């Protein structure tokens, strides 16, 4: 009787569209945090769908640390152009002046200055009262307690002990001037759901997700791609060409590649289904210390 059979992905899609529409209806100045990766790709697709034939009623915001893969930046600009979207890019000018780099300052300082601080600057400058992001609860342990509509105080801080109870699908979207909400439409999606959705809708993704020969160095147990010559080689290191792809994308010196022959989305999904390690395993940022994601989130990291 209905157009086609209803699947688990349809359920998640409908839920995410409902959340996006609530965010647009209940806030004065929402913004979509666009980080170029697969989750952002799905999120953007859902936003286009939720408000079609209108354009999404919010701009896209990208926090550029200046250490993203070059392919990510060109994919970002191409996507904004293709859909005619209002893309706003912010880099922490302070950090830029100080020359903060993940290589010389380490992932903690780099993430704090170029991501967390930069995000706060951009949110304050835009006076955004809702920041919509693509984070999922299955990504990391401290995210498992995150609300879909997650309250932030005037300093953008998350207090895990003072979260609002979230009942049925009735969000409490009330905030005072200066306070804000983080909104996570993909909360209930798993990594597999995201890839299956990309596959089903044939969504273009950054080619870095697909395996191809890339120049990498082995460092601290990870395979780091040398995206430009800012990555100076340490004694004993040498660049090798290897067939690799990325499960998550961030700043290139902090993103570990995995060896893979999956050069199509189908093969990536198949590899996922056989995967034995988590997607964040290749991310240096989560491994600084136990509980580190939780601490970054408290400070306002997305």
């Amino acid at each position, binding site marked *: 009787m209905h*157009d086609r059979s209803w699947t688990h992905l349809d359920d998640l899609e409908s839920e995410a569209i409902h959340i996006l529409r609530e965010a647009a209806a209940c806030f004065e100045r929402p913004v979509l945090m666009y980080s170029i990766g697969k989750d952002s790709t799905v999120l953007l697709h859902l936003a286009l769908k*939720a408000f079609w*034939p209108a354009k999404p009623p919010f701009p896209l915001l990208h926090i550029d640390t200046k250490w993203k893969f070059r392919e990510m930046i060109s994919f970002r600009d191409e996507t904004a152009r293709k859909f005619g979207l209002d893309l706003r890019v912010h880099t922490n000018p302070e950090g830029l002046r100080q020359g903060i780099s993940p290589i010389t300052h380490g992932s903690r300082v780099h993430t704090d200055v170029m991501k967390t601080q930069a995000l706060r600057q951009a949110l304050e400058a835009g006076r955004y009262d809702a920041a919509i992001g693509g984070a999922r609860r299955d990504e990391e342990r401290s995210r498992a*307690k995150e609300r879909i509509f997650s309250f932030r105080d005037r300093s953008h801080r998350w207090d895990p002990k003072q979260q*609002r109870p979230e009942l049925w*699908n009735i969000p409490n979207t009330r905030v*005072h001037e200066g306070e804000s909400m983080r909104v996570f439409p993909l909360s209930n999606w798993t990594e597999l759901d995201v890839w299956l959705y990309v596959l089903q809708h044939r969504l273009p993704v950054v080619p870095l997700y697909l395996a191809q020969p890339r120049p990498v160095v082995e460092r601290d147990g990870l395979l780091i791609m040398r995206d430009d010559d800012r990555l100076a080689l340490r004694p004993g290191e040498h660049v090798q060409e290897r067939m690799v792809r990325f499960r998550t994308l961030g700043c290139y010196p902090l993103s570990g590649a995995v060896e893979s022959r999956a050069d199509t989305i189908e093969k990536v999904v198949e590899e996922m289904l056989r995967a034995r390690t988590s997607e964040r395993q290749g991310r240096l940022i989560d491994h600084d210390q136990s*509980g580190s994601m939780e601490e970054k989130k408290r400070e306002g990291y997305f």
Partner: protein
Amino acid sequence: MSSMLNEGETLGAFLDRYRSLELLRFLTCGSVDDGKSTLIGRLLYDTDRVYDDHRKALEEDSKIHGTQGGNVDLALLVDGLKAEREQGITIDVAWRYFATLHRSFIIADCPGHEQYTRNMATGASHCQLAITLIDARHGMTRQTRRHAFIAALLGLPQMVAAVNKMDLVGWDEARFRSVEREFLAWCARLGTPEPTVIPISALHGDCIVHPSTHAPWYRGPTILQLLESVPVMRPAADAPLRLPVQQVLRPSPDFRGFAGRIESGSVTVGDRVQVLPSGRETRIARIACAEADGGDRKSVAAPGSVLVTFTDEVDCSRGDVITCVGGSQQPIPCHSIEADLVWMDETPLMAGASFLMRIGTRTVPATVVRIRHVVDVDTLAQHARDSIEWNEVGRVDIVTQQTIVVEPYRQMRALGALILIDRVTHATAAAGMVRSGDPHEPNPRRAHWATQPAPTIEPPADRSATESVARAARWRQRPAAILLFGPPKSGKTRRAFALERHLWQQGHAALVLDGQALRGGLSRDLTFSDEDRSENLRRAAEVTRLLLDQGMVVILSMVAPQTAARELARDLIGADRFLAIDCAQRGTDDAALFRDVESFIRPDQTPGAG
């Protein structure tokens, strides 16, 4: 971690299978140390759903924070926050995702200690099944009863009790059966469908994924067998249409679409629909969708998110509900509802408090005008009370300033579930479930203080007007009204009844008129606006006047905050028969109060001397 693919399965075959995989949302609850986190950890571990790097982190964490003497502590897989790992407790609801070859699962892990009611209600509002853990050594506790009560209150159709730590009672069948009987009896009192009770050891993995070798007497399913086999609840396609409107999309002058999620039933192009609360009818013209997404749809069922257009220019905006026309079950546009509340704010709820109420996609100012009762969740007894405290459940009447569209929660969750938001802190103060809506328009009200004195009714010839004098003489009192006024919690009601008891013991005839009690009947149509408070006092004063004519002493216990209204009451009753006492100013010495009142009602007292 093992593969999600069956042996030799291709991607195409997997995708076909995946399409038919159902999603079950369930929650786990129990007291601290009942082993809830261990149970979930065990489910993930024994179904081989733990990534290798997580397993490695778990082994390291177990050495530092573990409670299993350096052995792998499965609870640490799920205790996410640092504070939780350090304190060895779970603070907030945590969401877990896992899939087996047969089904996908979302788990709401609801911790049992502080804020247990709030956590439990949150989890239950998203789930269809609850697993309650019970420690076999302790049997059912207060907490177990409370968890089952909340699950029943939120209408969870499936209940499971997992009797854990069976290894610590030597897998004693008699022990298990006794806990089982107790739980079944409690659920029967709550009126839930018959629950399943399973003996387990989360620590050792008995009856979680694999059957136990220790309980040959148990023939029921393991936890996983149960989770993979219970029917997944889906909205029925032939249920009545409910589409709460989230947004109106107007990208161009010739397109006006209404966006929302179908919460019940389905929409089909050409369907006759109505927009509530206005009741205007029209038809569905389009279910609009971009060409790139497959173009317009003919029909979509719940829980699909849609964008519909109408054939006519009908007024419709956020907060309205699009429903089917006709049918036996219709939502009620109203201003007044009766609802059960789960109170989640540390500040207790007092009658008269105002909130923002969200129901469907509508947010309206609302006032809790009456607290009918608070439920004692240990005995299910309903107690009349004037406040609902943190974590308590009670029944209330709510009046809204604008029209809302409601249905009983048991019939239609989408229009029966609500939240109350504190107007100042913006905290979510309560979760509510509508029991009924009152469709009658409340009358615009004024306080009806008479400008002319009420006419005196001539008593019938066989009843002497002096009887009231005779009565007063017998009771050795002068008829009088004692108004005890002051804000909530200033001790009015306690004093009123203490005074009544004292006068009774002295041989007087006195009774209490309580403002809160009046609101339950005579003044049930009133809100807590200034005008309505004044009107409530007027009604009390009119009743008092009738009683004074019968020679009684009437003790009024009322908030009565307005000086002007109190003066009107004094004029109506007569200044010589009216004694007003401000409870907020008055000391706690009851004896002094009793003396003052006794002196005021003494028959030899000359009128006006009080």
